[in-house]
């Protein structure tokens, strides 16, 4: 079973994402910010990470840069999932190594479509 790590400081978003991802056949793990997510990655490498941008301890962008700098850090697909819809910010996310980008609010069709584009569905 494919594993998806959902990194978001909103419990509600994590719950909605979990429901959608489990319906799509993923095993889901959760982290409340980038720092917690990095800790989680010391033990398991997920197939895909659904990543919020604005979080308290470590932003999604900082997390992504740190992830991609790590050995085997290129492996997980990363899909940003944020309220940011400025194309400059989306460019920034893609340049930092994001594979796809979801603008909130999202639904199951959008998540499935983006997972497929990122090559994990």
């Amino acid at each position, binding site marked *: 079973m494919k594993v998806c790590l959902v990194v978001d400081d909103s419990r509600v978003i994590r719950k909605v994402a979990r429901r959608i991802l489990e319906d799509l056949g993923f095993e889901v793990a959760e982290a409340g910010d980038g720092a917690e997510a990095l800790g989680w990655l010391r033990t398991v490498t997920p197939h895909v990470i659904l990543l919020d941008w604005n979080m308290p301890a470590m932003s999604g962008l900082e997390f992504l840069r740190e992830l991609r700098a790590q050995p085997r850090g290129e492996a997980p697909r990363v899909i940003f999932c944020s309220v940011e819809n*400025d194309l400059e910010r*989306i460019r920034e996310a893609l340049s930092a190594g994001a594979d796809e980008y979801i603008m909130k609010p999202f639904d199951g*069709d*959008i998540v499935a*479509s983006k997972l497929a584009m990122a090559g994990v569905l």
Partner: protein
Amino acid sequence: MQLVARLCAERAGLRIDPEKHYLVENRLAPVARREGFSSIEEFLGAVRDRDEERLIWALVEAMSPSETSFFREPETFELIAQKVLPDLARRSEGRPLRVWAAACGTGQEVYSLAMLLSEQPAAGSTFELTGSDLCERRLEKAQSGLYSQFEVQRGLSAHRLVRHFENAEEGFSLSPRIRSSVRWRRVNLVEDVGRMGRFDLVLCRGLTPHLTEAARERVLKNLVDALSTGGILALGPGEAAPGLVAAPGLAGFLMRAEDRRAAA
């Protein structure tokens, strides 16, 4: 309901399932409001009593199928980029290739082609892209190139979004370069479409299941007649056209049997 079904069948060959009350309500409520009626019933009463072409067409256009998204069934677009257009370009002897997205709704299908062509131009070829639909309002939206956040997330990758769009006040605006590469026509496919000329590639995916049997025959004949020699027709999954056979090596694409023999 009978009035809606009759008008849709007469004017555009559309088959309206009498069971689908919700569909009629969803589609006609905004039209009734726009036309200044307080309810769908009042709007339908006016359509029946006044017999005004403008109101009748407002109804029929709103009931025509509108399901669309960018790069719908992405494997179709992959084949178009990798195989269909390069093959057609090789045979074109330098003349522009003509491509028609029929019943293209709010334009996502034909703009997907335009983006594809700007990203991977088939060597030495030029293209004329035409998008058509029955519904004037959908064509207006298509021409504006403005799409909501929800629409640009259906089928469009983030890489294509940042490459081909700009932020707009509400949603996203397609770049003028892509927008200007498409010509638009209002076309009722059950009528004579001879004025459109001949095309090397015609896409009309997902329309024919919504047509009456007689209209389906007429529309398919029109689409086949619109193909140039060696031209390719793309219909939706499970749709077929009499007189056409599968194009060699191109799953889901059709061509005339005699063209296939000549190409062999």
